[in-house]
């Protein structure tokens, strides 16, 4: 009996000294939640202006007429596969027209700034204006030039150019 009392007393002292360091048990429960996310291919093209204008100029003084709106900002956004190529093209719907007078569309060229953006010459066939690999946002500019000539008939010339951005 005395031994039992000794054991009980020793244990009580141990409990008092251990205090908060004593191991705590806990009831537990767990649940699993699965998260899924879908990312589909997307392409978005933004041009800083909807039209560019080439003013009248002396062909001797200004052999290459810059558009009033230069430089025109261009923003390309795409979500695609990591190894896929995102492409931007420009295609004119015809020559510059003023009634029956025309100025060959190939007299309009552009220069480009920004990674992946490329300059070129307008054409009725699609021309490359930029290419990139994978998803992301790319910003650049286009500056348009019209080769001037004394051979142009007077008039207000116009034509549309379609820019196409493709993200496979």
């Amino acid at each position, binding site marked *: 009996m005395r*031994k*039992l009392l000794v*054991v*009980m007393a020793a*244990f*009580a002292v141990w*409990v008092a000294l251990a205090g908060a360091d*004593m*191991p*705590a*048990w*806990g*009831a*537990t*429960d*767990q*649940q*699993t*939640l*699965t*998260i*899924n*996310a*879908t*990312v*589909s*291919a*997307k392409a*978005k093209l933004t041009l800083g202006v909807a039209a560019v204008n080439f003013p009248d100029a002396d062909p001797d003084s200004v052999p290459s007429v810059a558009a009033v709106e230069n430089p025109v900002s261009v923003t390309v*956004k*795409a*979500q*695609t*596969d*990591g190894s896929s190529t995102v492409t931007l093209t420009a295609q004119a719907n015809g020559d510059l027209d003023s009634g029956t007078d025309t100025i060959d569309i190939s007299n309009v060229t552009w220069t480009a700034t920004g990674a992946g953006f490329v300059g070129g010459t307008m054409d009725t066939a699609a021309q490359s204006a930029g290419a990139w690999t*994978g*998803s*992301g*946002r790319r910003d650049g500019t286009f500056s348009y030039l019209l080769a001037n000539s004394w051979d142009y008939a007077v008039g207000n010339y116009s034509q549309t150019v379609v820019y196409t951005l493709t993200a496979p």
Partner: protein
Amino acid sequence: MSGMRAEDKGITGQWLGLIRAWSVFCRARRAVWVCAVAAAMGLWCLPCAADTARLTLGVGGLSFPSADPDVIPLVEATENPVSVDVWVRGSGSGISNLSCFAAGDLVSGSAVIPIDRVSWVAQGNGFISGVMSKIDSQPVGQWFGKNVNAHGSLSFRLLNSWNYETGFYTQSMTYTLISY
């Protein structure tokens, strides 16, 4: 025993052996009884475990649909809000904690969306809003009291970006309820 006959010595030796064995048994039984009493005291003195802890999530999976990052910069999960029920009985220390831990980033083949792009907004007493992590468990709720009966909801969001590659991403999260 020196004057005893051999057969008497044998019989007496057997009785002595039995007496010794019985003595050992009695001492052992006493020791067992002392240990049992001490163990019972330990059970009484140690912080008591909760009798029961139960966690219930309203869904087993979440889905974030594809969206234009310019239009929807923060994509809501289709299943929002997700109900969460926490039920505890007999918490000795009166503390119950709910946490979550991601097994990794959102993965689609070799493409990855960092898991910390997923966050949640919590509703309900004791529930905590936060951001997913694959590094540390994140608190989702905490309650005090011997018994807990908490009902709340979690609304999950995915930060959208033009930098994400196309794909079907997935990952699992573990929600753990511990009551002391």
